[in-house]
């Protein structure tokens, strides 16, 4: 776990094992009054190693629930989830993924560096290896000068970068991100997106990224998974081909191909092409 992140830029389908494989997954939350809430219904999704997939949809479409199921923070009511060929539970135990939430969730009493080292420390990585790895990650997210600062001395964007560095600490093949930029202002957000594209290219990790921003999903992803609510299901999977990291500068945000993809996701989100936004709770079956 102290090894450097893998360098390959295009790690897709090297072994044939999917990074994430979700098959026929449903999740029902039992409520006290007997009216159960179906958060997810019959969801199938396969994510290749190194692939960046966004989950997008209105609130209550179960995108965060799906992420939590993959992370084994919750278990599906039916269906199966595999991460790199292992059960979600085993994958969690083996630290096959790193995770970042909307709140950076840094421990306020730890410095930036020791926040990044937290997972390594918990898994008994030796001190020199820890220090080497955290230095690498600090450089990766551009915070080398802030190693000894405390979280309350950082801006929201910097805190989120620390959280991303922490999620990468054990060089996971999969990164789970639940609206990590949701609380940031638009400027910081775009800068963070550009950085995330670069970081993913450098680490070669697959990413499942929950968001409700269409441009964000399009800018970052290889595929955008559009979900619909009540019950949460996958409505559409839209492939976005904007090229890998090198080509994705700020200029891309103004390119025609970017707009086309945004329109495609938009129309899918709103149901019919050019139609009025679908009423909430519309039955998609």
């Amino acid at each position: 776990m102290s090894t450097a992140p893998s360098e390959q830029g295009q790690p897709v389908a090297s072994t044939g094992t999917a990074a994430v494989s979700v098959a026929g997954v449903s999740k029902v939350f039992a409520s006290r009054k007997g009216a159960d809430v179906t958060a997810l219904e019959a969801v199938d999704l396969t994510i290749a190693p190194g692939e960046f997939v966004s989950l997008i949809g209105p609130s209550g479409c179960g995108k965060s629930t799906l992420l939590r199921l993959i992370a084994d923070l919750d278990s599906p009511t039916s269906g199966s989830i595999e991460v790199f060929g292992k059960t979600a539970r085993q994958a969690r135990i083996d630290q096959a993924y790193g995770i970042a939430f909307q709140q950076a969730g840094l421990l306020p009493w730890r410095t930036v560096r020791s926040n990044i080292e937290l997972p390594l420390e918990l898994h008994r990585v030796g001190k020199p290896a820890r220090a080497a790895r955290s230095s690498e990650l600090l450089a990766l997210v551009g915070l080398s000068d802030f190693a000894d600062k405390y979280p309350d001395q950082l801006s929201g964007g910097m805190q989120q970068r620390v959280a991303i560095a922490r999620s990468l600490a054990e060089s996971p093949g999969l990164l789970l991100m639940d609206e990590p930029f949701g609380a940031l202002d638009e400027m910081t957000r775009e800068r963070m997106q550009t950085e995330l594209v670069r970081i993913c290219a450098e680490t070669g990790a697959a990413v499942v990224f929950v968001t409700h921003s269409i441009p964000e999903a399009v800018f970052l992803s290889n595929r955008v998974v559009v979900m619909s609510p009540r019950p949460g299901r996958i409505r559409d999977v839209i492939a976005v081909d904007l090229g890998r990291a090198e080509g994705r500068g700020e200029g891309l945000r103004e390119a025609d191909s970017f707009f086309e993809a945004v329109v495609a996701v938009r129309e899918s989100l709103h149901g019919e092409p050019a139609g009025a936004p679908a009423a909430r709770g519309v039955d998609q079956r």
Partner: protein
Amino acid sequence: MTRTGSPLGRRVLFGVLGVVVLAAVWELYKALGPATGVVLGDLTVLPRTSDLAMPHVWDMVARLFRPVRSSGDDEMMWQAVLQASFFSLGVAAVGWLVGVVVGMLLAILMQRFRTAESALLPWIVLSQTVPLIAIAPLVKRWGSQIEIGSFSWENWMSVALIASYLAFFPVSIGALRGLESPDVNHVELMRTYSVGWRATLIRLRLPASVPYLLPALRLAAANAVIGTVVAEVSIGLRGGIGRMIVEYAAAAGGDPAKPWAPIFGAVVVGLLAAGVVALIGLALTRYRRGETPA
């Protein structure tokens, strides 16, 4: 506890000013108040201003620098008081330590098992409603029956036990709140690291509990001191401040400033106890940083 922006010098100045104001109010009332005290109906709300009831501040201070018994060449009053103060402080410290350990263990147990919380918490609250005066003789009697090998229960242990009985309460309540203070976010993060309850306790819950724990420790220190002084009186332990207050009160008729000396001693004990807790707080500054603004 420490507010930024207020330099140490000024805080000390305000502390001294507080004492001076208190002394001034005392003397002012003594000079201007009615000799019979302020009486509402049958109730005396303010004391008589005679030298017997309210000695001059300077008389009380001067008394500290005369021998314990006016005649004879005893040690100085301040020496005797200081000695008694340290004796009481030592007993209180033992009680505080035991109380903190027990309180922490109870809090950890309650955090770990929800059923333990619902089973224990009412009893913990109830335990504090038992009057100290009632349990002190009981503790002494039970203690006197303990004799294991060369170990025999001594009276000071009864006093320390009663002090710990008062001290554990704020610690268990404060620590429980602190241990339960981390957000779901942090707890889930620890789960994604697939670490167990113990690592979560040490790396997350205990550090997060510090801001809740420090006020509890301070309260526990105050409780331990009060418990010690009161228990010394009701158990009849010699050598401490509590007993000294009772003994000297008997001498108030001929030497009105004398009973005030051990009261000053009790104040010193309280200040020292608070100071020690403040030092602990200083050592744990790192864990008292504000929450991250998200």
